[in-house]
């Protein structure tokens, strides 16, 4: 059974690899699981394994050739019936079509035309967005077939089951956004510690009168305080776009929510500045539930004008956040911890919280940033004002 040995996709972000070395020669027996070639990828050198027993009939690609995922590297003669290889990008259709005379190995500098998967532009972009290597589509194996947008959507819909993959894609997305933030945004950082006692006391009193489902949590007070301060002080609420700051009148506070098992999303609480605490709590509660169930709405993903992030009760004292572009500011809330605090010349143990601001220096300076943090602190010191 003669089959094509193709460059497999070794990760969602892999597009190509360079053939470094053939570890076997034509005619030499190969065994399932045995390394037959080495390729260099962005992740380093990787050995490619045979997925069946057999022999290499002939090489198509020569060492040094840069190959696209799915490119034919060699022709193999396999023992036994053809089975769709699990790892290989494109299972050959059976019976194998008559092969043209392969080009001499030395001439195979790039992927042969036959190996190129044809995607519509829209399909290619969608696949990129979803972190799918389109070459892995079985559909693409049909000779001459074109992968359309619908094929990518179907594929995406059919495979949400692999949590590892989803997590990897999310990690990739977080990485891309944060790399962009660190590359493009001149961050400055400010920290401010305040006594959370008044807020906590007010909360206890407020919650005592309410059924469990209606109670507020501390995070909501912080979200509201940030929203109010952001609405009052210009320069922290909006987007940096096309080389300038676009102020937003409404404050949509992105709430960074940890997804169990790793990862982070920061969907928006719309018009947080204009909502009372009870309404904000209801929405926040629903948002967390949906975020963890993976049912966020697309608008919630893109509309936040400023973000608040926290590591929760188990967190550390200070969290230095990274701005989520195109936003221009983010507040990191540290864990509330009991610590000594000076009140009117006396030391007292108080619940303290440190808020850290990361803001975009293209829009504001530290002086204004300081005012922003202090106005959040003032609001939390007077919880009635929320």
């Amino acid at each position, binding site marked *: 059974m003669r089959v094509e040995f193709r460059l497999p996709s070794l990760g969602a972000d892999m597009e190509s690899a360079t053939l470094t070395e053939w570890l076997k020669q034509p005619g030499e027996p190969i065994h399932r699981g045995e390394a037959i070639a080495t390729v260099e990828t962005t992740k380093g050198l990787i050995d490619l394994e045979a997925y069946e027993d057999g022999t290499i009939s002939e090489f198509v690609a020569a060492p040094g050739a840069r190959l696209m995922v799915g490119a034919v590297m060699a022709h193999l003669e396999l023992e036994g019936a053809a089975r769709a290889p699990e790892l290989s990008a494109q299972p050959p259709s059976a019976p194998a079509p008559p092969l043209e005379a392969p080009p001499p190995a030395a001439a195979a500098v790039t992927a042969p035309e036959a190996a190129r998967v044809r995607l519509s532009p829209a399909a290619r972009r969608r696949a990129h967005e979803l972190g799918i290597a389109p070459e892995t589509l079985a559909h693409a194996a049909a000779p001459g077939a074109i992968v359309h947008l619908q094929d990518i959507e179907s594929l995406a819909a059919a495979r949400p089951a692999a949590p590892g993959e989803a997590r990897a894609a999310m990690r990739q997305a977080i990485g891309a956004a944060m790399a962009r933030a660190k590359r493009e945004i001149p961050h400055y950082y400010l920290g401010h510690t305040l006594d959370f006692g008044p807020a906590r006391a007010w909360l206890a009193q407020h919650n*005592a009168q309410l059924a*469990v489902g209606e*109670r507020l949590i501390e995070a909501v007070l912080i979200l509201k305080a940030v929203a109010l301060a952001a609405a009052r002080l210009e320069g922290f609420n909006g987007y940096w776009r096309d080389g300038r700051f676009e102020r937003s009148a409404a404050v949509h506070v992105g709430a960074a929510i940890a997804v169990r098992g790793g990862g982070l999303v920061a969907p928006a609480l719309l018009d947080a500045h204009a909502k009372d605490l009870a309404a904000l709590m209801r929405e926040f509660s629903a948002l967390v539930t949906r975020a963890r169930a993976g049912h966020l709405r697309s608008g919630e993903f893109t509309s936040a004008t400023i973000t608040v992030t926290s590591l929760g*009760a188990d967190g550390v004292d200070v969290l230095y956040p990274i701005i989520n572009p195109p936003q221009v500011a983010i507040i990191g809330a540290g864990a509330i911890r009991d610590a000594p605090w000076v009140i009117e010349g006396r030391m007292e143990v108080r619940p303290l919280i440190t808020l850290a601001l990361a803001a975009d220096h293209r829009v504001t300076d530290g002086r204004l940033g300081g005012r922003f943090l202090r106005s959040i602190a003032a609001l939390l010191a007077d919880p009635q004002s929320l």
Partner: protein
Amino acid sequence: MDINAIRTRLLALLRQIAPDIEPQSIEPQRAFRDQFDFDSMDALHFAAAVSEAFGLEIPERDYPSLTSLEGAARFVQSRLSAGA
């Protein structure tokens, strides 16, 4: 109410809040927070679910009793028998 029945019910509530939890992997004595990244919102959701499912008033000061499966089961049992 039998404590095993309470445990089963609590487990179901827990699964509603965190569907990704595998029931057989839960360590009954260990805090939810350490086992599956429970945060204050999860704790509140769990308290609300327990309150509704068993018809209990749960003031904030009792929250610490609800941090593990075993703790929650004992809390519910004691409150149910106190009310009976």
